[in-house]
């Protein structure tokens, strides 16, 4: 019951920095690296993850006492896969352009370890309101990180952010930034900066 003492606000904000799924826990790196060649793709992937994670956490938290321990992982995966397919079909039916841009990465949210991780670590052990807050915080942290990563790569790789020209026309785009190596370089530096900030915080505190 010690867990219950954590305030809802802390539960919500931990995903932004302290337990940021990408920068601190290094989860969900496959979609992080793959889709962030432009800010809009990072943002759309984040929104899809927000929907999937919040819905899955809600359902899992509601039925957490009905699911036997032995079959919890397959149960989580079926629930997650159902919501991912709903997202995939909805995007294809209503927003065909976004669906085209994200390509195969929407179905791959099924195996995004952030989502499975939150079910196992949190939703299956907590009441539904806490599970929703946790899911919102975590997926928002994920979304912000992906959007920033996408914006940095788009800025250096195409001179634009959200398809708006930022760099002067004389700027020669660094092609490598929108290719896979650019994803690794940028993410590595972002994780490095996050660790550096935390290390400094630790010293002064």
């Amino acid at each position, binding site marked *: 019951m010690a867990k219950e003492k954590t305030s809802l606000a802390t539960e919500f904000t931990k995903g932004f920095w302290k337990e940021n799924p990408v920068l601190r826990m290094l989860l969900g790196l496959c979609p992080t690296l793959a889709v962030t060649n432009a800010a809009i793709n990072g943002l759309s992937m984040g929104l899809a993850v927000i929907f999937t994670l919040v819905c899955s956490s809600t359902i899992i938290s509601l039925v957490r006492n009905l699911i*036997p321990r032995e079959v919890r992982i*397959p*149960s989580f995966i079926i*629930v997650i896969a*159902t919501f991912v397919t709903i997202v995939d*079909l*909805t995007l294809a039916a209503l927003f065909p352009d976004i669906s085209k841009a994200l390509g195969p990465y929407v179905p791959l949210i099924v195996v995004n370890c952030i989502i499975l991780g939150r079910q196992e670590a949190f939703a299956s052990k907590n009441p539904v309101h806490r599970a929703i807050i946790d899911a919102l915080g975590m997926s928002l942290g994920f979304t912000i990180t992906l959007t920033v990563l996408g914006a940095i790569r788009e800025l250096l790789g195409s001179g634009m952010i959200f398809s708006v020209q930022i760099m002067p026309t004389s700027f020669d785009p660094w092609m490598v930034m929108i290719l896979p190596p650019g994803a690794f370089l940028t993410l590595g530096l972002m994780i490095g900066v996050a660790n550096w900030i935390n290390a400094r915080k630790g010293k002064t505190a």
Partner: protein
Amino acid sequence: MKKSARLMIVLTVIAIISGAVLSFMNIFAEPRIQAHKQAQLERSIGIVLPGTVQYETEMIDGTTFYIGSDANGQATGVAFKAVGNGFQSKLEILVGTDLAFSQILAITFLAQAETPGLGTKIESDPTNRDDTAWFTTQFQQLTISRDISYIKNQAPTQPGEIQAITGATISSKSVVDILNQAIQANREIFLNREA
């Protein structure tokens, strides 16, 4: 025994609910997805056969041809799909030619997922501020009395030649190869149709 029965029941129930939800979802989504595909095809036919207001779909020897006509009922040309492998994805191109298969009127992409920033320039090149679709524009009014060829790093000098994209030679070459193959195969089918 009792335990294993419970495991099975729980999983089965979850799977059944999931299946039911998804079937309802599909009933909602499927017609819309088909409508988007159809709308995209109609838009694309309008692009590759300029002036087309309506078209007829004709199956000849298992190949689908779209024969367009303008407001006066004059034929605007014939369009067909050319499909093949690009650098890292399947390229689906809609090609419009005149009825005699002597020149391409225009081409457009129905599907491609090439390397972002490099191969995707075959469809849209944001670094070219005058014409982001300069690569496909090159195919307009391109003669196909012989195979299309490509040249690197300089403007085309001969008829039937296009300039490849710097940094995406394989994607450019794939487009040329796919077009040559499809045009050759479909020319024979279309010109020998019973008429």
